[in-house]
C-alpha cells in the first residue's frame, strides 16, 4: 500500500516553481575580488560611502572562515565559481513604471502567482519583485507614499534616502557579524527598503518576492525595515528558484529596527528549489535576520514557513533593548528528500520586563534532517524578563531526523525561562484510522501536519496562511513510507 514507490514519487513530486525564464541578462563572470565589488557599486552608481562600506566588509571577509558549528553537511562552496551580479538586460536602472518592465518578467511573476499589475494584485498587498540581483518592479508606491511610507528597492534608497540608509544599514547586523553576513555586506545587489514614519500604521501588507533565475549566480539581497515611533508594518517575503543541478548560494541579510511603541511583523514563506531526489542541486539558504527592539514597548514578530532549499541556515533573532519590548518567533520548517535545516532564533533580553515567545515546529520526512537551535539570553539588567519556548518535532517515516539544541543563559535572577519540547511521529495507526474514515493518505498527512503547524499558521496574514498551507501540502504529497 503506502510503500517505497509512493515515497519515491513524492520526492520527485513537482517543485512547481522550477521553470527558467528566457531573458537576456547582464551577468558578471564568476569570481570575487575588489574589482567585482567596484563593478557592482558602479553598476548601481553608488555614492563613495557605499563603496567604502562594501570594500571594508570585503577586506574583513577575507580574514574570516566559514562557520562549521551547524548540524549540516555542506559541500565546500567555491566562492570564485559564483557570479555576483546578474540582471535582466531590460531592467536597466532599476524599477520604474510597470509598462517599462519586460513582459517576460511580468509573466514570470504571474506564473508564480504574484501578479504585478496593481489591478490584479492581491487586495491590500504591495510587492517589490526582485529578479536575480535587481528589483524589477515595486507596486503601489504612490498609494504608500500618500501615507508617508517609503517602500522601494535598497538601491534606490541609497540614492534617495542616504541619511536613513547610512544611519541604519549595518546597525543591527554589523558587517563583522558572521561570514555570510559579511559577504553580503560586500556584494549585496538589491533588496527592499521600508521606512514607516512616526505614528503611521502602514495601510497595506508589504511584500518582496525574490526569484533566482540565472544559473551559477548567487543572490545576496539586503532588506532594511524601520518602524519609527508608534508605527506599524507587516511585511512578507516569498522566494523561489528554477531547478538546477548545481547548488546556488543565497546569502541574505535582513535588519529590522523598531523604535518606541512600534511593531514590525515579518513573515517569510521560503520555497527555494530543494534539490532533486538524489540530493543534487538546490539552494543554500544562509541568511542572517535580526530585529532590534530599540525603543521601549516595541515589538518584533518573526513568522517563517521554510519548505524549500537544500540547506537552510537561519536564525531570525530579536535584540530586546527597550524596556517592556516583545520578541516573537514562530517557525515551521519542513525537510524532505535530502534537505537539511538548521534553524531557530536568538532572543537577547537586555531591557526590563522584556518578553519573548518561541514556537518552533520542525517536520522531517524521507531523509530530511531538521535541527532547532535557539538561544535565550537574559542580560544582567533584564529584570523580570520572560521567555517561553515551545519546540515540537514531527517525524514522517524512519529515515529522517530531528534535533534540538537549546542554549539558555540567565544573568538576572528575576528572569524566567521556560522550555518545552516534544517529538512525535505520524504513526501507521493514525494513517489507517484516517483512511478508514475515507481520507486519502496524503490528505491524512496534510491534515495531521496542518494541525501540528496551526499555532504558526495563525500568525501569518490570512492570504498567506492559505498559501502556506497549500505549499505545505504540495511539499508533503505522499510523504509517507
Amino acid at each position: 500500500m503506502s510503500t517505497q514507490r509512493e515515497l519515491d514519487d513524492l520526492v520527485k513530486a513537482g517543485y512547481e516553481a522550477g521553470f527558467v525564464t528566457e531573458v537576456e541578462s547582464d551577468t558578471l563572470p564568476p569570481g570575487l575580488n575588489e574589482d567585482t565589488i567596484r563593478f557592482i557599486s558602479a553598476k548601481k552608481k553608488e555614492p563613495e560611502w557605499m563603496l567604502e562600506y562594501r570594500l571594508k566588509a570585503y577586506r574583513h571577509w577575507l580574514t574570516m572562515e566559514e562557520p562549521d558549528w551547524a548540524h549540516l553537511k555542506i559541500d565546500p562552496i567555491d566562492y570564485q565559481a559564483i557570479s555576483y551580479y546578474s540582471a535582466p538586460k531590460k531592467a536597466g536602472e532599476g524599477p520604474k513604471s510597470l509598462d517599462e518592465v519586460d513582459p517576460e518578467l511580468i509573466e514570470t511573476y504571474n506564473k508564480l502567482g504574484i501578479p504585478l499589475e496593481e489591478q490584479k494584485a492581491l487586495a491590500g498587498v504591495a510587492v517589490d519583485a526582485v529578479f536575480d540581483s535587481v528589483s524589477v518592479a515595486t507596486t503601489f508606491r504612490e498609494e504608500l507614499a500618500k501615507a508617508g511610507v517609503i517602500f522601494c528597492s535598497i538601491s534606490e534608497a541609497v540614492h534617495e534616502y542616504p541619511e536613513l540608509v547610512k544611519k541604519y544599514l549595518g546597525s543591527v547586523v554589523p558587517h563583522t557579524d558572521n561570514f555570510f553576513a559579511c559577504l553580503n555586506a560586500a556584494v549585496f545587489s538589491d533588496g527592499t527598503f521600508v521606512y514607516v514614519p512616526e505614528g503611521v500604521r502602514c495601510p497595506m501588507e508589504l511584500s518582496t518576492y525574490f526569484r533566482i533565475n540565472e544559473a551559477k549566480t548567487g543572490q545576496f539581497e539586503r532588506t532594511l525595515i524601520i518602524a519609527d515611533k508608534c508605527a506599524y508594518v507587516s511585511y512578507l517575503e516569498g522566494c523561489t528558484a528554477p531547478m538546477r543541478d548545481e547548488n546556488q548560494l543565497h546569502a541574505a541579510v535582513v535588519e529590522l529596527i523598531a523604535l518606541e511603541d512600534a511593531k514590525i511583523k515579518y513573515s517569510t514563506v521560503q520555497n527555494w528549489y530543494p534539490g532533486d531526489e538524489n540530493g543534487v542541486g538546490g539552494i543554500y539558504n544562509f541568511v542572517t535576520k535580526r530585529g532590534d527592539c530599540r525603543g521601549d514597548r516595541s515589538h518584533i514578530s518573526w513568522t517563517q514557513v521554510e519548505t524549500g532549499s537544500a540547506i537552510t541556515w537561519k536564525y531570525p533573532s530579536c535584540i530586546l533593548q527597550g524596556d517592556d519590548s516583545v520578541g516573537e518567533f514562530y517557525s515551521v520548517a519542513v525537510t524532505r528528500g535530502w534537505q537539511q535545516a538548521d534553524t531557530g532564533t536568538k532572543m537577547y533580553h537586555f531591557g526590563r520586563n522584556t518578553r519573548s515567545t518561541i514556537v518552533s515546529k520542525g517536520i522531517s520526512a524521507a531523509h530530511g534532517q531538521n535541527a532547532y537551535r535557539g538561544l535565550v539570553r537574559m542580560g544582567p539588567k533584564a529584570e523580570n524578563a520572560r521567555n517561553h519556548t515551545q519546540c515540537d518535532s514531527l517525524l514522517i517515516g524512519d529515515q529522517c531526523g530531528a534535533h534540538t539544541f537549546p542554549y539558555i543563559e540567565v544573568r538576572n535572577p528575576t528572569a524566567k525561562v521556560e522550555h518545552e519540547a516534544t517529538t512525535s511521529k505520524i504513526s501507521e495507526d493514525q494513517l489507517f484510522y484516517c483512511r478508514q474514515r475515507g481520507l486519502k493518505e496524503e490528505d491524512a498527512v496534510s491534515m495531521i501536519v496542518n494541525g501540528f503547524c496551526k499555532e504558526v499558521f495563525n500568525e501569518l496574514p490570512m492570504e498567506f496562511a492559505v498559501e502556506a498551507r497549500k505549499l505545505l501540502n504540495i511539499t508533503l504529497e505522499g510523504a509517507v513510507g
Partner: protein
Amino acid sequence: MLSIKNLHVNVEGKEILRGLNLEIGKGEVHAIMGPNGSGKSTLSYVLAGRDGYEVTEGEVIFEGKNLLEMEPEERAWAGVFLAMQYPVELPGVNNMTFLREALNAVRKGRGEEELDAVAFMKLIREKAELVKLPEKLLKRSVNAGFSGGEKKRNEILQMALLEPKLAILDETDSGLDIDALRVVAEGVNSLRSPERSFLVITHYQRLLDYIEPDHVHVLAHGQIIRSGDKSLALELEEKGYGWILEEEAAA
C-alpha cells in the same frame, strides 16, 4: 452484502484466521463473540484493509466486489465502517475539521457533492445529539485526552455521519458506563435499516440486550466454530466458552 469464504490470515508470520466463513445479508445484525486473542479484531482489520495482515487464502466479496483488492479509503467509500476497539488519537487535528474532511472525502468517493460549512454544521449538531456527544468534544483534538467512553461515542458519531452499508463495531461497549451503553445502543438502533448491516464484536450479552442480533457466532482459534440465534449469546453468558471448545475438540 458480505461473503467471507475460507479466509486465512497471517500476522507477523503467524496464522491467526484459519479458514473463516461468514455470510452477512442486507439489513442483518451479526454478533461475534469469542475468547481473548481468538482473532476478532484481526477479522475487523482485514475487512477494513489494514496493512500487515496477510491474506494467504480465501476471498471476501462485498456487494459483488473483491474487497481485498481495495485500498482502505476505497472500502470506506464503498460503505465499510470500522468502529475501533482502540480509537486513535490525532493531537492537533480539530475533531470538527476531521469529521468534515472525512465526510467530504467519503461523499466525494461516492460521487456526491461535498457539503458546505453551513450544511455540515447543521448535520453534525443533529448527529452529535443522537449520540449525546457534548459539543465541546467537537472542538477538541480528535480523541486526544478523551475518556474511554467519549472515544467510543465519537466512533459512533462518525458512523452516524458516514452512513455506512456495513458497520463493524469492535468492542464498542467496553469501557462504557451503563447510561453510555444505552445511548450508544440507541444510536446504533436508530441507524438500523434494511439497507445497513452490522457486525458487532462483543464479550457481553448486555450489549445484545439492546442491539438484538439476528445471528450470533463464536470465533475461536481463527474459525467460526458455532453459530446460532440470540439465545446462543445467553447460553455463552451463562456457561462461558469451555463447553463449546470441548465439544469442538471432541468432534
